[in-house]
């Protein structure tokens, strides 16, 4: 699990790292919408080519992405299988009375690629943006909500903390798995019913620990007199540069390409 890189910032010197967090946030939200609404493989492939190019520009190691993907590969492949067997349509092949349909396989592969693309986008976004810059980005994107009296400061902070806590929760889960394995609880072998039951031995202490951690964090922020509301100053002010304009221009072209293809 330690290999899952989602939420882990990797300080490198790349064009994507240097982009304004607001640009990256607009980019990831747009990409997520495009990925989720893409219904045919050609559109998904265009998005993959785009994400591949961004990945290369970000200089994030491909091996890291692969290790992260490998962890969830079973679930992703399972979605292909489920769709292949249970989507009605033209029969492609039969296996022990069950039929794999052409439509099911197409749908399964599409969902597989969509989930992979979302994961990839998430890794690139969190891997190239430090948590504090994320807060800035969220604050900006939520700023129109200020007029509706929604606490934008708190909301953006919650989002940033949630992302920041992904790696912490992953390592905590890993630690709990080790502790429970030493009590003879098996997660990788044995009947499926027993393995599902074993998950409760992780989930319950993990929840308890997460609430405790959240309470400690809230308390430590309180004692430092932190307030999410109000006009906060920034140590490093973000500035919108030419490269951000170029990135948004490229994004606009992508939207046209995906919508018109």
């Amino acid at each position: 699990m330690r290999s899952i890189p989602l939420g882990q910032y990797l300080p490198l010197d790349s064009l994507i790292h240097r982009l304004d967090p607001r640009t990256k946030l607009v980019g990831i939200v747009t990409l997520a919408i495009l990925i989720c609404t893409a219904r045919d493989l050609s559109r998904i492939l265009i998005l993959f080519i785009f994400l591949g190019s961004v990945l290369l520009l970000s200089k994030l190691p491909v091996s890291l992405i692969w290790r992260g993907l490998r962890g969830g590969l079973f679930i992703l492949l399972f979605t292909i299988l489920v769709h292949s067997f249970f989507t009605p349509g033209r029969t492609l092949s039969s296996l022990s009375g069950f039929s794999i349909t052409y439509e099911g396989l197409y749908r399964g592969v599409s969902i597989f690629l969509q989930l992979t693309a979302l994961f990839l986008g998430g890794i690139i976004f969190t891997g190239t943006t430090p948590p504090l810059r994320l807060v800035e980005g969220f604050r900006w994107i939520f700023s129109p909500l200020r007029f509706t009296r929604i606490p934008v400061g708190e909301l953006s902070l919650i989002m940033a903390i949630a992302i920041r806590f992904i790696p912490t929760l992953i390592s905590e889960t890993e630690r709990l798995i080790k502790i429970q394995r030493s009590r003879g609880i098996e997660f990788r072998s044995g009947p499926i019913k027993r393995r599902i039951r074993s998950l409760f031995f992780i989930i319950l202490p993990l929840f308890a620990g997460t609430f405790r951690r959240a309470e400690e964090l809230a308390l430590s922020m309180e004692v430092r007199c932190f307030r999410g509301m109000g006009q906060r100053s920034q140590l490093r002010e973000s500035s919108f540069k030419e490269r951000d304009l170029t990135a948004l221009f490229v994004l606009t072209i992508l939207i046209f390409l995906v919508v018109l293809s």
Partner: protein
Amino acid sequence: MSIVIENLSFVYNEGTPFEVWALKEIDLRIEDGESIGIIGPNGSGKSTLAQHLHGLFKPTKGRVLIGDREPVGIHPGVGFVFQSAEDQFFARTVHEEMQLGYQNFGLSQDQFKDKALEALEMVGLSADIFLRSPHSLSDGEKRRVAVAMTLILGPKTLILDEPTLGLDPLNAKKILEGTKKLNHEKGVTFILISHRMEEILEYCSRVLVMDRGKIIGDGPPQDLFIQEIETLIRLGMEPPWLVRFLTGFKAKGYNIKYKTLNPEEISKGVLEALQG
């Protein structure tokens, strides 16, 4: 059940930017019934090494032999008490919590209650705690229950990873006295990871010093703490006060005679040295 480690290396996150070599070419032999302390700065590989002995990790290179065999998964003969082990609790009562591991390892249910009470007693807890919720206990009691949960499994080797972290001296003593008793009376191999040098001096007959994934010192704590005092200080560790006292006294030109690092013996030696 001796433990042999041959040329053991282990890497975390291999092939990623987060790659860390936690252990580098370690050779070690632990005899049956030994009491060993493992010390070293944070990130020196102490816990990783101990978790290899429990079968939680597969070595990147080399091998670990427990009783002449390489373990496949968790070795039932090796008990492991993790740092903040009380985080694992989820059951309604201490009884349920203790029964889970016992059931999983297929031990006889007829003897459960006797063994549970014996394990609780070893760490200074009474039978009253049995039906209480583990979440309602004090931090010290929780930790002692976590240790008892390992003891009930009847391990031949017991590994304690910083068991006294954050505990008051009384609770710490109850855990260490209880587990050390197992070593003395039943010959259980005792491995203690700790940053408290006083504990190592009191409860271990051999100490391993680790730094950056390697064992850089191995010997009886009484000798090693004195001979390697500068190394320990350089690594950011604090040698026992008795060792610091002796070293300071010697530096002033006094020759103190002693056989063991025992406060009474040292005070006699100091008196003799002062009287010339």
